[in-house]
């Protein structure tokens, strides 16, 4: 990427928010798994012999929602910042990038989850499963799309120069 200091800042923002968002999504996935496990144990009355001391259903759900919301906000910021970068540097067909499209799709999925949770109080097992599926998609995208040819998200050298290019 060749660009000005402004571009560099945009790039930094894009990378930082995306990275933190991905980490938080992994935390959300772990919390969802813990939720599903605790729910399973309670439902199947296998409480007594559980050596594992999991947090309560309420806590797992509550923290899970907060983590997911934060991750989502950062993800949106990352995507917007990335879009500006792409628009400036990748020419007229900037949006035709595998990773970019993938991110937007998963982002929409999380948007749907969060809207359902915040409006009608959708939660519980289904919410946990969808969160788990969503995060799995994101992580697959992160790892898998490097092997796809139609992405410009690789071999990106960064060259910063002052003034016009």
């Amino acid at each position, binding site marked *: 990427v060749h660009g000005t200091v402004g571009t560099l800042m945009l790039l930094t923002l894009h990378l930082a928010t995306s990275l933190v968002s991905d980490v938080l999504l992994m935390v959300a996935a772990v919390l969802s798994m813990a939720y599903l496990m605790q729910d399973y144990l309670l439902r199947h*009355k296998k409480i*007594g012999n559980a050596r594992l001391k999991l947090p*309560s*259903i*309420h806590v797992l759900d509550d923290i899970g929602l907060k983590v997911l919301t934060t991750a989502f906000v950062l993800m949106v910021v990352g995507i917007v910042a990335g879009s500006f970068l792409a628009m400036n540097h990748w020419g007229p067909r900037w949006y035709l990038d595998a990773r970019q499209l993938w991110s937007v799709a998963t982002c929409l999925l999380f948007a749907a989850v969060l809207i359902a949770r915040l409006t*009608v109080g959708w939660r*519980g*097992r289904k919410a946990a499963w969808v969160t788990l599926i969503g995060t799995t998609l994101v992580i697959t995208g992160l790892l898998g799309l490097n092997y796809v040819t139609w992405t410009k998200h690789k071999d990106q050298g960064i060259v910063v120069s002052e003034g016009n290019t």
Partner: protein
Amino acid sequence: MSVGPAQSLDFVCVGINHHRAPVDIRERVAFNDLDHALKSVLRYDHVQEAAILSTCNRVELYAHGDVLHTPHALESFLHEYHRLPRQTLTPHLYQFQGLEALKQLFRVTTSVDSLIVGEPQVLGQVKDAYTRAHEAGGVGPLLTRAFSQAFATAKRVRNETDIGRHAVTVSFAAVELAHKVFGDLKKLTCLLVGAGEMSELAAQHFAHKGAKINVVNRSLEQAHLLAQKYTGEAHSLSDLEVLLQKADVVLTSTAAPHFLVEPALMRRVMRARRHKPIFFVDIAVPRNVDPKISAIDSVYLYNIDDLSGVVAQNVKERLKEAQAAHAIIDEEIALFRARLNEQQVIPLILALKEKGALIAETELGKTLAQLGSGLSVEQQHQIELMARSIVNKLLHEPITELKAEAKDNPAEHLRLIELSKRLFGI
């Protein structure tokens, strides 16, 4: 300095408990006036120190006294104090001597010998027994050491094992499960539907944790009466749906012959409460809550058999943990024994050092007197140093060996003490 014969532990326990004696025997030996009893037992021969533990499951006497005569004295005391014919208790009584008596004290204090293994009350009862004995003047150095190590052992068992962690009553099991759903119980709303004995007991536990208790009953009057107890709201059964929307924990125990809570009702309720988790404890027989509702997301339902199952699992778990507790008890007994042995060897070591010092001083006196004033102060000082260091070097090996043997080879160390006394003429 004279050193008495080395002795083993003069500690004795005589008692009766729920394992060996039915309640109609136990109630006859229970003590009402502990102070009076302590003062009486301390008047017996061969009883130098004594403590009495008297609970509904056991009566045990712990005493400092020689292992040959004290058990008999304690047995006589039990019969005479309670005015029982001779030998009435004998088939039910057990006796422990020396380290075995100490082990019994540790077992009782750590609750591995309790009717409900791991129950926390017995530690308080033993502490109480010790305090009362102390007040009555029955406690000397041996009982102090024995009891304080028993308390330390109980603390270790509580910290290092899960012996008392899981609920072993149905009502406590309900509270424990609610913790797994909600975490903090302080801000919960608990709904008591009908009032059976067990659900009321559970409601009390929840109230104790700070939860708000609302009451629903077929008769509003009855509901009001109950609600007053917990300063909650009282409602009639027709308000059930609205109340379910607000409740977190629902305890049902009505005599209704049909289900009060069914899937259709519960789906409406869950929508209204925005799918917030709800926990049902159905203690009624026949059941008040349709088991099908547990298929609904965020609805958790436990009936009386489920709770009993949890309790049975927990009891098993406690018995497993009791094995770990036994290992800790054995460790602590070994520690006590090592300290005891060390203490037995200390008088001998002191005597050895004293004898050595005496010999050195005597010989120095003689030598310095003979050499007279021909020596400088510095030379006199050097001679004194030499005399003392010969004695110390000579004694160093035996003393180290005695200490090590006391710690590592308790079985042999009494013999070694006797032998050392003969060798060194003490």
